[in-house]
Structures are given as structure tokens and as C-alpha cells.
């Protein structure tokens, strides 16, 4: 009989076996990578807003304190998006005829809320509480990044569960003195390790086991 296969098929056959295995592996890695990619987490993706509100200008340049607008941050689970009224406190006078502020004035006149695009979205089913973090020496910038340098706000971290848990396992890495919590430019000192450990005791932060219990965040 004649050969059914050409000599080259020997190589082809073996090559295809290996490459098949390789491709399967690659596909799996790919899926896992996409799940962590900005495409899904929306990390570092800036969003158009109905009014191009610049934190850089208000916080960075004007030095307005976070709490002026986000009033609930120290007392409530949600920091709170300010009502139009808060904007008008100043903009009734400042730039009170600037075109780009029209939506604000419109909202104030018509008593219709401004639909801000939500930037920071935690994974579903998480019950996050701002107040306890702020009260235990976790600074805004630890999670939100340097808002004071963001013309338009983007999400600075993945906000994936793994990211949350990393910090709940050893909070020392981010703890800062309470008076520094709202300081956007705070940088971790070189000896953060021991400072953090000291603060952890000082602020009576719970054990890792308690912080990583499921019901700490999920209800």
C-alpha cells in the first residue's frame, strides 16, 4: 500500500498535540486575566459626567475638604453625593452664568436631580461602610487614589474582593494617623510596617480573623 500520510505529518501530528495543550492553557489564563482587567473592573477608566466636575480644581486647587460635600463619610455607610444645593452654595455667586454650570442651575430650578455616572462600584452583595474605615485611620486616598489630582474621577483600584481582603488581612500597610485621613497627599512613611502595627493597636482594630469573616461585609 502507499503511505496515507506524508512524512511531514509526523512533525505536524506531534506539534498539534503540544500546541493543543498549550492553547487550552492559554485560554484559561486569558479568561482569568480578563476578569482582572480594567475592561471588567473599570480601573483607571475616566467617565463622562453630566457636568465635568473637577476634583482636581475643587480639592487640589481650592483645597475644599472632602467632608464639605461628602457629609456622611464620618457617620454613615455612604459618603453621600452632595445635593445640587451644595453646588449652588458657591455657584449661586461664583461663575453663576458659566454655560457649563447650566445643568446645575437647571436642576436647582426644576428640582430634578442630576444623574451622575457612578464611578466607584464595589462588587455586588458587599455592604461597605465608609464611616468605620475613616474612623479607624484608613485614608480616602488609600482606596480612591489621589482624587485631588483627578480632573475627572476614575476608579484607582480594582475593587475586587481579593483587593479588599488583602487589606483586611493586614491593615497595617495602609493605616495612617487619624488627622491624616483626609490628606490626599499623604505618603506612607518608610517605617509604615511598625507605624501601622502601632496604630492598629491604638485604634483597637479587630483581628484578621474577625476582619475576614464573611459576614463582616456580606449580609
Amino acid at each position, binding site marked *: 500500500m502507499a503511505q496515507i500520510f506524508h512524512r511531514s505529518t*509526523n512533525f505536524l501530528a506531534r506539534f498539534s498535540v503540544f500546541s493543543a495543550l498549550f492553547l487550552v492553557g492559554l485560554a484559561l489564563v486569558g479568561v482569568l486575566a480578563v476578569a482582572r482587567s480594567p475592561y471588567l473592573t473599570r480601573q483607571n477608566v475616566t467617565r463622562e459626567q453630566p457636568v465635568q466636575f473637577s476634583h482636581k480644581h475643587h480639592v487640589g486647587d481650592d483645597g475644599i475638604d472632602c467632608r464639605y460635600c461628602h457629609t456622611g463619610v464620618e457617620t454613615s455607610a455612604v459618603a453621600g453625593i452632595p445635593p445640587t444645593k451644595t453646588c449652588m452654595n458657591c455657584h449661586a455667586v461664583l461663575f453663576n452664568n458659566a454655560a457649563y454650570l447650566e445643568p446645575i442651575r437647571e436642576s436647582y430650578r426644576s428640582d430634578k436631580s442630576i444623574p451622575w455616572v457612578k464611578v466607584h462600584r464595589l462588587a455586588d452583595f458587599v455592604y461597605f461602610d465608609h464611616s468605620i474605615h475613616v474612623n479607624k485611620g484608613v485614608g480616602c486616598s488609600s482606596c480612591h487614589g489621589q482624587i485631588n489630582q483627578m480632573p475627572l474621577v476614575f476608579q484607582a483600584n480594582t475593587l475586587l*474582593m481579593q483587593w479588599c481582603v488583602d487589606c483586611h488581612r493586614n491593615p497595617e500597610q495602609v493605616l495612617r494617623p487619624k488627622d491624616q485621613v483626609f490628606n490626599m497627599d499623604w505618603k506612607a512613611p518608610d517605617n509604615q510596617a511598625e507605624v501601622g502595627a502601632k496604630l492598629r493597636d491604638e485604634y483597637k482594630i479587630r483581628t484578621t480573623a474577625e476582619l475576614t469573616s464573611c459576614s463582616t461585609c456580606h449580609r
Partner: protein
Amino acid sequence: MSAGQPPFDSPEIRRLTPVIGPGHTYGSVTDKISAIVLTRPTSLGWYVGFLIAFSIMGMMTVAIGWLIIKGTGIWGINIPIGWGFAIVNFVWWIGIGHAGTLISAILFLLNQKWRTSINRFAEAMTLFAVACAGIFPLIHTGRPWLAFYMFPYPSTMGLWPQFRSPLIWDVFAVSTYGTVSLMFWFVGLIPDLATLRDRSVRKPLKIIYGMLSLGWRGSARHWHRYQSAYLLLAGLATPLVLSVHTVVSFDFAIAIVPGWHTTIFPPYFVAGAIYSGFAMVLTIAIPLRKAYDLEDFITMRHLDNMAKVMLSTGLIVAYGYFFEFFLSLYSGNKFDVFLVQQRLHGPYAPFYFALILCNILLPQLLWSYKMRHNVAALFLMSIVVNIGMWLERFVIVVISLTRDFVPSAWGRYSPTFWDWATFIGTIGMFVTLLFLFVRVLPAISIAEMRELVAETSEEEK
């Protein structure tokens, strides 16, 4: 001949009832078996049978689709009976699968010649049964699309499966079992695929079989390694097959539910598995040898031996039932004792008695030689045992859950249309796969048959 032979495989008997019809040569064996695949025209019966089976399988897909739209609530399950048909069928199918591996692996190790002609499709049966079984753990979950949570993969949540749960053991046991069976089966197929390659006349077939046979050319060196690999696989598959049903039994034995929480489960689940498995092999073998007149290869001796295995495993199972019963009473555990009473005169008592009838009483007929050599009767018996073993799982899963610790929570279970559709559907799938198998692959290991011819010819000298 190795020492591990049961008496019924002694030379005299072998001469009386040969494992292969007289007058076969290497060539004739090869012709006959490969013909089924290559030359023999596809019979009308095959088409009809295939269509029926396939449409039943279609019903299964509909049932599953509906399940995904609506949720497991379309089944009869409830609180307290969280597991119903799905798990019953799962255990039943897995059990059936075991006979295949047993025949091909354990009997191979015991060097039982008579296994050769049945091991191939027995292994196929294993694969298909495991496929059917595998469906259920997936779809019985409330959110099947998240079933991948049960596999260990680096998730963005930083969570891993909970390895103390018997269900995770199941995941590993069943997937390992599937993989190993597949490899075992394929390795066995390689030389036959080569045969088909060489004997097929049409080019496309040559190419397909050629690829599948990986260019096998029967070199002595290859045979050398091939045999040791095959032997090793057999050696590995043997403990595996035992472990799989042990793990399945853990699903129940580890739980605290009265009627589940008992140490006797592993051995008698395994015995039960083999029991039902051999029943299923018979159920398939008998029509098969008729349809493709393979009586020369699957001889009465095979049927006789399988019947004997059924008889013996059946007795082990009976022993299991007895001791389950006895231990519950002996333990004095009020919950267990109550459950035993429930089995005897609770709402589901008829099922229990039907089970006793099918699995213990009727099979005793197999003591009779005439019974074992009456093909039709044997076929019926195999069906009966299949039903009986299904009932066993039903009794274990359902009755135990209907009457557990807190009387206020007692309930009942009855299957819905969709329970039945899914169950019967898997049977359709099983048969469909079998039809395809006999059509495109040699249902009997040609190479091993040749070996057999060689040995038998030696003996005749």
C-alpha cells in the same frame, strides 16, 4: 495461566464452553469484527433505534433548558427533601459505569480470558454512563452557571473550594474516573484503529482512522511498552473504581441524616455498583450479540459468568442491607431505629419491598443453571436488577430525608414530569452514544481476540 483463577475458569469447563467459537483464525476474527464497522451495511433497525434514542435525548435537553429557565423548582424536591431524582440517577449511573472498568481492569489483572470479548463495549458503557452521571451534579445545583465555583481556580475573590465537603471529593473522583476511563479505553483502541485504517478502502476513512491510530504499526518495541502501560493503567483503575463509589457513598455516610450516616456504605455501595454494572452489561450484550450475530465471541460462557458475578455481588448487597438494618437496631440510636421502621411501614414502604424483591429475592433464580443459560430470562433478570438498584438509591436518598430529626419538618417527595423527563432522557443519551459506538468503532477488541485465538490454538495442540 496465572494463579488468580476462580474455579469456574478451569480448562475442562473452558473446553465445554469456549470463550470463542471454534475455527476462528486471526483473519476471520479481524474480518468479522471490523466488518461491522467497515463493510456491513447500516441496518434499518440501527436507524430506527438511533432515532428513537436520539429523540428521547432531545427530551432531556428540553427538560434541562426548562430547568435553567425556571430553576430546580420544576422538580419535586422541597424542604426537607433537598435531593430527589437528580442524585438518585447520579449514583445509579455512576454505579453502572463501574462494571466496565471492573471488567477491563480487574478481570484483566486476574487474567480472565473471557473478559476480552466484552471489555471493549463494557468500557464504552462506562464512559457513557459516567457522562450521564456527570450531568446531574451539575444541573441539580440551583445556579448551574456558577458550578465552576466547585473547581479550584484562582478567582478574583481569592476563594477556593471547601475540601471537607464530600461533594468536592465527588468532583475530583468523578472527573478523574472519567479521564482515566477515557484513556484506558483509547489506549485499548489504538491497535484496532490501526486495523481499521489498514482494512478500510475509502480514503477519508483511512485518514480518520489513520490519525486516530497515531500511526500504530505493531512494532514489537511498541507492544513492549504498550503492554506495561496497559497493565499499569489496569492496576491504577482498580483502586480508582473502588474509590469512586466509596466517595459517592461518602456523600451520604459523611452526612448526619439518619439512614445515611453509616460506616457500611462504602463496601456495599461498591458491591451494588458492580451488581448494577454487570446487569447493564448483560442488558447491552444480549441484544448486541443477537443484532450482529457475535454469538461466537460473546458466548454462553460469558453470559454465564456475568450471571454468576451478579449473583455473588447481589449476595454482598443483600448482606449490606441486612447489616444496615441490624446495625440500626443494634445501635439503639432512636433516629435510626425509627427510620428502619419507616422503611418497613412508612409511606414509602412499597418501594423498600420492591427493592428487596428486585435485588435479593428474584436474583436467587440465578443459582439455577437453566436460568443462567436462558438468554431471554437472563435479559429480563438484568432489567430487574437495574430497576432494583435504582430503587435502592431512591430508598436511601428519599426515605431518609422524609423522616429525619425534627418531626415538625417531616415531608414527602414525589417526582414531577420534569424529573422523569430528565431521567429517561439520560437513558436516551446513553443508548444514543452506544448506537454511535457500535457503528463507528469495533465493539470487541480485535487485537485481544487475536491473542485469544493464538492461545486457544496453542491449547488445542
